């Protein structure tokens, strides 16, 4: 534990330094910017892969720096953090490629890519945080680095969305700050995994620790978009597609969900959280959000807005999985961190491709789009089936574990929530799939079809195909060692053995 390793720091630097360097470039330095982006993204994936291998062979990586007495910046790698880091770095690489294609010829590309890199630095920082305060530092850093991305277009609508986004996230961050300082005042510095600290104090300070749990939860609930703290998410859809993809699949909402997992498993401990009835409160909110998000999604005609409400609903699967005690639900929750990421990023890439290639932003305009963009919509269809829970796509695995766990825990109402949600998922995703493949295209756009060419730019097409295939294979080969599921099971075994 005392050995210091600079590798975790290096993982952060691999995107932080390119981000800062890009900020200093001139707008027309396309080659340099692209080189820095890709170099950082590839280096990060390689570094995460390296430490993951090292971790599996029993290495420990810690980096600790004291900022003030009791205020220690600590990076520490554990299985859960690495899992999230691997997800962030892999999807960042793919999204970077996509963004290079998407923003070709756009304005302010330096600014965009700089903050894009900072944003991923924040999300890997969240993954690698070793204690509560480091988590908080990166959690706030994430807010700051995503704001310029949300307002990137600079239109009045984007600026207004940025304002909403900030009010929610800064408000949540402040509540979280209060909770975190409170935890330090009551319990001293808490490293993730030291659940014995709270366990030993809970009988002495039940009121304080209850208040603090819910303060922290509320702070995290904003980014995890749990009702009624979800309002920022649909609004911030005005951001460019790669940003939406990243916000929804990896960075922001996942930071909230990941934080809830940390709070319950690694700070308070499942035992305390269950005993004090914290989990049942979380379960009620999460279950309501699942249904609420799906119902709202039904009524959206804007493609990205429908996806956004779907995210509101899907992220709460993770929270609900955490809230129902039991190894199966926990496995489902953690594996859903990755599965939802893969499927949702596919959907946003697809939405971005359609909008970028044909300018269609409404679902009512998607008639016959599948014939013009078969690969894009093929990937979308896979992801949509996954979201609904059709085997063997990734989403089925998550839902299977969650549902099975709920039955095992005797929470039959949760099973009903899952069933209702799946039905709603089908109700709002299948119409898109149906329109895309089975409706006649509007005749005036047919002429724009040309044979012998890719359906859209290669840089937009490759990412969506890759993530579509990954959504399928991580479900199909879930039983294989090294799949997201197998890793999630190992993580959970550790929590439940303790």
């Amino acid at each position: 534990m005392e050995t210091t390793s600079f590798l975790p720091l290096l993982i952060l630097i691999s995107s932080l330094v390119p981000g800062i360097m890009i900020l200093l470039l001139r707008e027309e330095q396309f080659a340099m910017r692209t080189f820095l982006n890709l170099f950082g993204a590839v280096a990060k994936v390689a570094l995460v892969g390296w430490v993951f291998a090292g971790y599996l062979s029993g290495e420990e990586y810690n980096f600790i720096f004291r900022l003030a007495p009791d205020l220690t910046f600590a990076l520490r790698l554990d299985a859960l953090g690495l899992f999230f880091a691997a997800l962030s770095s892999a999807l960042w690489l793919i999204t970077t490629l996509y963004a290079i294609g998407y923003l070709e010829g756009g304005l302010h590309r330096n600014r965009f890519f700089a903050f894009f890199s900072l944003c991923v630095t924040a999300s890997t920082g969240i993954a690698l945080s070793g204690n509560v305060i480091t988590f908080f530092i990166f959690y706030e850093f994430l807010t700051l680095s995503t704001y310029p991305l949300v307002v990137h277009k600079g239109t009045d609508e984007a600026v207004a969305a940025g304002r909403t986004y900030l009010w929610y996230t800064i408000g949540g961050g402040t509540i979280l700050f209060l909770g975190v300082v409170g935890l330090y005042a009551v319990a001293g510095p808490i490293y993730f995994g030291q659940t014995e600290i709270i366990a030993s104090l809970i009988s002495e300070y039940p009121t304080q620790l209850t208040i603090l749990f819910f303060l922290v939860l509320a702070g995290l609930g904003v980014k995890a978009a749990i009702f009624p703290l979800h309002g920022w998410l649909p609004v911030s859809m005005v951001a460019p597609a790669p940003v939406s993809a990243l916000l929804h699949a990896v960075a922001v909402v996942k930071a909230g969900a990941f934080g809830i997992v940390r709070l319950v498993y690694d700070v308070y401990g499942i035992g305390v959280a269950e005993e004090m009835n914290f989990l049942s409160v979380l379960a009620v909110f999460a279950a309501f959000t699942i249904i609420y998000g799906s119902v709202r999604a039904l009524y959206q005609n804007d493609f990205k807005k429908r996806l956004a409400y779907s995210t509101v609903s899907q992220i709460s699967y993770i929270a609900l999985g955490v809230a129902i005690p039991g190894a199966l639900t926990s496995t489902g929750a953690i594996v859903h961190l990755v599965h939802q990421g893969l499927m949702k990023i596919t959907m946003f890439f697809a939405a971005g491709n359609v909008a970028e290639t044909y300018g269609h932003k409404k679902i009512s305009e998607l008639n016959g789009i599948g014939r013009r963009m078969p690969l894009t919509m093929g990937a979308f269809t896979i992801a949509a089936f996954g979201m609904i829970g059709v085997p063997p796509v990734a989403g089925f695995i998550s839902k299977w574990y969650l549902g099975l766990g709920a039955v095992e825990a005797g929470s039959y109402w949760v099973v009903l929530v899952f069933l209702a949600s799946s039905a709603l998922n089908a109700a709002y995703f299948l119409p898109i799939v149906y329109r895309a493949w089975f409706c006649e295209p509007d005749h005036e756009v047919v002429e724009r079809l040309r044979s012998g060419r890719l359906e859209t730019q290669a840089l937009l097409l490759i990412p969506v195909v890759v993530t579509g295939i990954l959504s399928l294979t991580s479900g199909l080969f879930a039983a294989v060692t090294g799949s997201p599921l197998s890793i999630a099971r190992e993580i959970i075994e550790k929590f439940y053995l303790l």
Partner: protein
Amino acid sequence: MTGLPTSPLPALLVGFPILLAILTLFFRPGVKALVGLAGCLLTALLAFIAFVEVTQRGTVIHTPGGWDPPLGILLRMDALAAVFIGMTALVGGFISLYAWRYLRAQDPATGGYPLFWPLWLFLWAGLNGLFLSNDLFNLFVTIEVISICAVALAVLSGKAGALKAGLRYLLAAITGSMAYLFGVALLYGSTGTLDLDHLGQVLEPGTTTTFALLVVTLGLLIKMAGFPFHFWLPPAHSNALAPVSALLSALVVKGAFYILLRLWMEVFGVGITYAAGQLIGLAGAIAVIWGSWQAFMQTSLKLLVAHSSVAQLGYLLMIFPLLILPPGVTADSADWLSVTWTGGVYQVISHAIAKASFFLSAGIVIMAVGHDRIESLRDLVGNMRITSMAIGLAGVSLIGLPPSGGFVGKWMLLKGILLSGQWWWAPVVVAGSLLTAGYVFMLLRLAFAPAREKEPFRPVPKTLEVVALLLAVSSFLIVFPADYLIQFLENSEIFGSGIEAVLKGGFYGND
């Protein structure tokens, strides 16, 4: 006072800038600025040497002419003084660089407000003298020097608005001085001493003492623009030239805070009640909310920044109730004292750096667009990348978001609040942060928004932009030496007769 190592540095820290200030008077305007700048940079260098000296040798003293108090005066440089002197050097050094370029660009005809340099050097000498003083009368003299120079600097531009604001500033400063002096006279009358250490030992509780302490505190509150005596600050700070605004907000008001901190912790063990502590905390809390709200409502850039200073000073006042033990609490269990006062000092430093940067950036924007309506920030990001970054970083530090210096300061303040059990201050800190976020992001939102019409951004000397950015970056970099600074303060025996005595249960009666 024997036994402490002596060093000539404390005397140099006061004498050298005075010498330079006089020297600049003999040069013609163009050269004056160069000599002044050189003097400032050398003073800053001297301060850093002195800082290192204290970290190496501990508290050092100097008795000019070799006369010990009470006959002579004593300059004492302990850890607290060293930190404040170091802060002044860092912020003052950057501001001097900025001023050198800024004043020349503003007023090329007369060589750029040549009087700025002697006044600023005198002011610097006053600040150093204040930090080094160890008796009530010296403190009075130094804070008078500071006030006079500050008022003169505030009206340097000669514009009508500045003169009017300067007059108000002068009246407030004089009232504050008179109150302070009156209290000091009462204390001297009842104890016969002005030396801080000695006073701490001989002061006895009683009506006179309590009254004297109240009057002294009142005077200092006026000088540091504590609510409700903040009325003079926004016009004075916003009407001054940009480098002067930065000096006033970042450094000058901190002088009064420094005296207040020293007196409350070192001397005023007797006579300060729990209720008085709560009252001053309440003033701070109102200042945080009111000042932030006012800042949020401003349409002029510099007024916004000035109101923000009122709010940020409020945070500093909020540490005082935590330093007074509530009835029935023994000093042994008061584990929040050290985190609170070191956190307060750290907050002073981080605010000084961030606010200086903010005012300097405001000056740049005004120079570029020609007026100071906040609308002028529209599309700043597209036109002035460096200044946008500076405003963003300094703003984030003011809000107290990680990983800035302001974050460490707020963290320590909030921790002190929660540990002391005076949880009712916590919502104020939270609300203050949100309001600060409100006005900072209002600026950033405009900076990102597209320009309405073709608003001309005139080119601005790069030096100015770089200095403002360097300060903004410093407001983040000070996170790295935070642990060192806080331990340096904690481990030093600064509050020899005050806080130590509190910890031994010596002073604070359970009233």
